[in-house]
């Protein structure tokens, strides 16, 4: 396809009359003497206070950030670089009957179009390879990509997406994780069940514990979906050269894992793939796997040019991973003086359309769901289920914040009902040195009680309540 074309659009992309004397404004600062760091090695003993605490250190990248000279992906460009945009399904569950890209391909300035069928191996994922790079046969959530365009400008690519015609046959969908557990529910991936991972932790005899308890408390807690909203959107540049070597500049935090996924999806030797992790404008767990990178690589292969893709803020919400909403049922048996003797926990994690880092999150959520408390009789069952929603994955804490909200709220309810001070009930149950976690790990350097007491003293817990 020729680069030059005779339309109104042409004048918009030709910027030769714009002076490109950018360098004059990028004034370099003089180098100031570096801050010396202590270099003698120090191996602190357990529980020993190291001198690092309280020292002021600057960040090695702080100056570049403050000068605006840090080069994030969107600040980089290469000669002949094209811009890619992805068309999103906008329908949660459907069969793709046909995709017609001819009108888009015929548009001046459009250099290449790819669909799911062009992806050599159209599945990836860190635990289960259940996620397509672009939806081909089926759409599993509204944020699924169905086609991608590389064009001379971002706006031409966006205009071309409107000309990509996709015919859908709508299918049933499921959006509620509890409903997704039921046998009669729509099965997102057509398998027997929507449950794709389960963790069980059993310790002691929880039913006997409840029988012995003076009081049994039950409550349900739930949390919502949360997007990382890193200030820099997902961005990447792919360059497939004439020797078949692909270079990807990307914001991914785990480039080695991503390299494996690239090799798989592109069916290309890993040795021919080079991933360059650039400075990332915020990750928080949301940039831990590939997103558009294989698409950009294929567009680059088709056009012989570097291709850049930057997600819009809207795509960040619909088409990248989020934090799991969890429905958490707690049942806790306590003695009248507030000692927890039995706890039953049921967690249902809303996994969205694909697994992503759900399995990891599930494990952490399950292990931590009992809280930092010694509980003799414990029964935890945790499930993660598919729904036709944006996939959930890694985010700061991997499931820990959700269960912490539940067990601490539950603890407050119990304390209130028993008339025990909320701090006191925690001290009576908290882990100590040598306590074992629910999965039997013996814990050292445990300072739960000390931390609670110190915090209570610092912010005036007692004074505030009297």
């Amino acid at each position: 396809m020729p680069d030059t074309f005779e339309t109104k659009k042409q004048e918009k992309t030709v910027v030769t009359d714009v002076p490109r004397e950018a360098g004059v404004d990028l004034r370099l600062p003089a180098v100031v003497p570096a801050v010396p760091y202590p270099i003698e090695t120090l191996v602190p003993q357990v529980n020993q206070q190291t001198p690092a605490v309280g020292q002021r250190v600057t960040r090695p990248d702080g100056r570049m950030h403050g000068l605006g000279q840090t080069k994030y992906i969107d600040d980089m460009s290469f000669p002949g670089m094209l811009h890619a945009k992805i068309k999103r399904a906008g329908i949660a569950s459907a069969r793709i009957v046909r995709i017609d890209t001819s009108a888009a391909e015929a548009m001046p300035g459009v250099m290449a179009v790819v669909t799911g069928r062009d992806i050599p191996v159209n599945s990836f994922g860190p635990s289960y390879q259940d996620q397509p790079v672009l939806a081909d046969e089926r759409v599993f959530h509204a944020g699924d990509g169905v086609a991608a365009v590389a064009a001379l400008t971002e706006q031409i690519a966006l205009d071309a997406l409107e000309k990509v015609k996709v015919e859908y046959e709508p299918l049933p969908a499921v959006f509620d994780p509890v409903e997704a557990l039921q046998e009669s529910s729509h099965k997102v991936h057509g398998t027997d069940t929507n449950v794709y991972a389960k963790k069980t932790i059993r310790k002691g005899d929880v039913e006997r514990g409840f029988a012995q308890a003076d009081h049994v408390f039950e409550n349900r807690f739930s949390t919502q979906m949360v997007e990382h909203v890193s200030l820099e959107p997902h961005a990447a540049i792919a360059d497939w050269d004439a020797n078949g070597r692909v270079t990807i500049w990307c914001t991914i935090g785990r480039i080695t894992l991503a390299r494996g996924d690239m090799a798989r999806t592109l069916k290309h030797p890993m040795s021919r793939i080079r991933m360059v992790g650039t400075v990332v404008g915020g990750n928080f767990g949301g940039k831990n796997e590939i997103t558009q990178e294989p698409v950009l690589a294929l567009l680059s292969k088709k056009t012989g040019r570097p291709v850049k893709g930057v997600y819009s803020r809207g795509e960040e919400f619909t088409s990248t991973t989020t934090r799991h909403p969890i429905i958490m049922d707690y049942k806790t048996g306590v003695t009248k003086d507030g000692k927890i003797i039995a706890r039953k926990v049921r967690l249902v994690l809303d996994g969205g359309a694909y697994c992503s880092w759900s399995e990891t999150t599930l494990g952490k959520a399950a292990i931590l769901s009992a809280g930092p408390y010694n509980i003799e009789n414990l029964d935890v069952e945790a499930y993660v289920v598919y729904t036709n929603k944006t996939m959930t994955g890694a985010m700061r804490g991997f499931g820990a914040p959700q269960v912490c909200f539940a067990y601490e709220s539950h603890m407050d309810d119990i304390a209130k009902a028993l008339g025990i001070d909320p701090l006191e009930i925690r001290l009576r149950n908290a882990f100590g040195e040598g306590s074992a976690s629910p999965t039997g790990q013996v814990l050292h350097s445990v300072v739960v009680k000390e931390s609670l007491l110190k915090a209570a003293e610092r912010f005036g817990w007692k004074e505030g309540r009297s």
Partner: protein
Amino acid sequence: MKGFEFVSAKDARHAVALMAEYGPKAKILAGGTDLLVDLKSVPEAPPAVIDITRAADMKEIKVTDRGLVIGALATHGEIMSSPEIRDRYPALVDAAHSIGAIQTRSLGTLGGNLVTAVPSLDSGPALVALEARVTIAGAGGSREMPLIEFFVGPRRTALKAGELLVDVVIPKKNLGKPAGFQKFGLRKGQALALVNSAASFWLDPAKKVFVDPCIALGAVAPTVIRAPKAEAYLAGKKVTPEAMAEAGRIAAGEAKPISDFRASADYRRDLIAVLTKRSLEGALAVAERNQKESRK
């Protein structure tokens, strides 16, 4: 953004002429803080964007024989720092301050905020509580109407095709009328109002009673509304904390708030009661300060 033509208007008259030339689909760019967001997502671009940011005659804030005239192009930042407004109308300053963040306040204009006419708009209630009027220019000349009638529905105003909001006037009779403004959002900065409320009244210096009380509420109905029952209750009543609290409760009963993901209708009603009481207290503080100063 999809392509469009960009034309700049020298003044209000030029803007009206350009609107006639480019037709009703052309968009007016005043501050752009809403317009550009819309233009980035519209399926079809307008034929032209008429930039009125350079129309100096629509920017002035001054006291004339019509009253306090605030040009439609005065930015929220300019309203906050205007010597005509800064000390005399804390309610207008607070309302302007509650809009967006500094970046939006240095671009966003009073006229743009009013023309957008979202139910939660922050500049509306304080002006309605001061019984502001608007001037509208069109090809056939200009007309005036009370601001409260300018709002027709959510995102709908009384502007007809080819018409331009030129200025907002606080009428002479209300010059210096003490007023208070309160907004409650989910954050202190850059948040939409769950409820906003403004109140004004003259304080009778001898009898210490409410004279001409006026209460306006935002984000609790399709447009900014007055609370006539609460106003009637206050008129002539002795200024006391109890009376102000009761007026808040009455006002809460006069609104029709909705439940949405930001807050429930019940919560909004509670907010109306509290915020109305506080905006009355704000107006009282201004009134007392004014009386103290006039005695000096």
